[in-house]
């Protein structure tokens, strides 16, 4: 099922059709259910009439009691062995009858968020490097860019939520285990330090600005990489099997997009050149890592390899790299790298959906 549906759910249509209908002494609202929750939890502390306490009604079983040959009292060791027989082996022995797993429901907001997050992370890195090498003006610009890039991120994330009004629940707990939780916290922290850094810059607290920039960059190292880890830590075969290289690939594109965006805006010659090197290296990294990953995961990569956005992203990267190596095209390669970064993320998300829908692939992955 696709992510979200417009309009009222069918049962609400049914219910509304009967609105206003009354009957003496009785509620005649039809019982057609409500979504998203288990109906009516109430603790009264009272007993349930005609039910045996402590799950007594479920006692084994009413049906297959000792007067049947349902189960022998003692199991031999063959039980684990039987399961191993059925579940073992590298090949799927039968035709798969799916569906196996659910694909992600994320729509365009998520890859765009991944993109801007990566861009922001890359920019934060650029700002530290600029500071380090004395281009403080460039650093300030990079910090502004990082802030500018990260500002729409929460909006994108909120827009993607099923219940946007509950965005703050993201900060209800701090869950190290969950990349989504860590990512949300990281985004908050990153936004805070990035805002602080820019504010300090603007107010003239140079040192504070730089320090905040360093902190932002440190957070950026996670912001730029966790998105890949987030995908890899799911059951979607394409992502899960890419667990080693997916985050590095995302880091590459993050760095390239950060560098590319900065390069388009920076004025200092050396900085621009350095950024040119960086985006080249980063994109080159992506162009090297991606095929390695694709080969590593074999046929699971097919939905990705066949995805138009993926092909486009690769071509954009290749042409950009070629132009850059040939020292042609001026700012065109940077634009291409930015496009490639965005397309890469779109491709990975969309291909992931296809991958999860491929029951054979899911079954195969689980066998190996």
């Amino acid at each position, binding site marked *: 099922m696709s992510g979200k549906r417009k309009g009222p759910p069918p049962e609400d249509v049914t219910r509304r059709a009967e609105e206003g209908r009354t009957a003496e002494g009785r509620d005649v609202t039809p019982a057609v259910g409500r979504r998203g929750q288990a109906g009516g939890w109430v603790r009264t502390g009272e007993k349930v009439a005609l039910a045996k306490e402590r799950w007594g009604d479920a006692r084994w079983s009413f049906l297959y009691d000792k007067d049947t040959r349902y189960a022998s009292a003692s199991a031999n060791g063959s039980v684990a062995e039987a399961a191993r027989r059925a579940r073992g082996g590298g090949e799927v022995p039968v035709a798969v009858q799916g569906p196996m797993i659910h694909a*992600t429901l994320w729509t365009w907001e998520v890859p765009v968020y991944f993109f801007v997050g990566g861009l922001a992370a890359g920019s934060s890195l650029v700002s530290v490097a600029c500071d380090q*090498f004395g281009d403080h003006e460039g650093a300030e610009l990079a910090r502004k860019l990082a802030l500018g890039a990260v500002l729409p991120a929460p909006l994108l994330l909120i827009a993607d939520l099923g219940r946007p009004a509950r965005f703050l629940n993201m900060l*209800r707990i701090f869950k190290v285990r969950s990349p989504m939780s860590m990512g949300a916290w990281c985004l908050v922290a990153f936004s805070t330090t990035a805002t602080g850094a820019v504010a300090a810059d603007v107010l003239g607290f140079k040192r504070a600005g730089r320090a905040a920039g360093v902190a932002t960059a440190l957070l950026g190292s996670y912001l730029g990489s966790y998105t890949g880890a987030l995908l890899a830590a799911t059951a979607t075969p394409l992502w899960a099997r890419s667990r080693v290289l997916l985050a590095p690939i995302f880091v590459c594109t993050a760095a390239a997009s950060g560098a590319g965006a900065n390069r388009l805006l920076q004025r200092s010659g050396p900085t621009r050149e350095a950024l040119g090197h960086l985006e080249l290296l980063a994109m080159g990294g992506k162009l090297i890592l991606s095929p390695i990953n694709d080969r590593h995961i074999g046929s699971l990569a097919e939905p990705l390899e066949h995805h138009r956005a993926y092909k486009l992203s690769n071509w954009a990267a290749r042409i950009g790299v070629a132009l850059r190596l040939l020292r042609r095209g001026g700012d065109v390669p940077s634009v291409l790298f930015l496009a490639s970064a965005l397309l890469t993320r779109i491709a990975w998300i969309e291909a992931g959906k296809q991958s*999860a829908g491929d029951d054979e692939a899911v079954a195969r992955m689980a066998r190996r």
Partner: protein
Amino acid sequence: MEIAVQRPEAQRMGFFTDTTVCIGCKACEVACKQWNDLPADDLRASLSYDATRELSASTWRHVRFVETLRIPEPEPTLNFVEAALGAQLDRWVFMSDVCKHCTHAGCLDACPTGALIRTEFETVIVQSDVCNGCGYCVPSCPFGVIDRDPYDGRAAKCTLCYDRLEDGLEPACAKACPTDSIQFGPYEELVERAKGRVATLHERGLEGAYLYGAGDEPQDQLAGGLGAFFLLTEPPERYGLPAHADSPIQQNGPIANATGVAAAFVAAGLAFGAFAAAFRKAR
């Protein structure tokens, strides 16, 4: 510990779904919807006798109809007629699928809001008053169980009737199941009984019977052991189940995070290198 609700006397509870006594009646699906007051899904043309097709945010029990009957290839030969005449109609298997309430629960690990928790019965539930519908749990379930409702926006799945358990009632599906294919009880007892069942079936010659999700050696466990486990007679893929599974976060998270952060530092190194080179040249 993971357990969010602390009650001293609580113990692990689970489902044992024995497909060898399932008659495919779908009582569990309806009993679940009745108790949990869930709506009907959008209508879909049915495959086999299965119009529900999969577990969803509003279908927490789902009976799979496993067709082992193959329709012969439509070759216009006499053999085709012969094959159809001689087709062996001995297997049509039904399996009531449900949330597995994994020991290593992918959805629970993934949830950023704490909406998903482990209860005192060691079951995994979504707290509907917390969930903000981020959707991360959906691809994080290796069994395709949890889903986000397309209209409501929140994720929802089987709670093993948490509210009923609190009052000492058995879950609605297990209670309704006319042939006790769905059995409910304290986990350890349930596993012992299930093992005994497998042994009995083996004695009767049904060598293919096995437990899916319980009774395994530690290295073979599915997601650390399933709170709701199954007795199956065909390879798991026939039921849309993976042969192996674990919480994807526990399986892939550390590695993916490590390589990601490492890559970020490599990128930082490269950035510094690029700047160093450029600035050296400029100087």
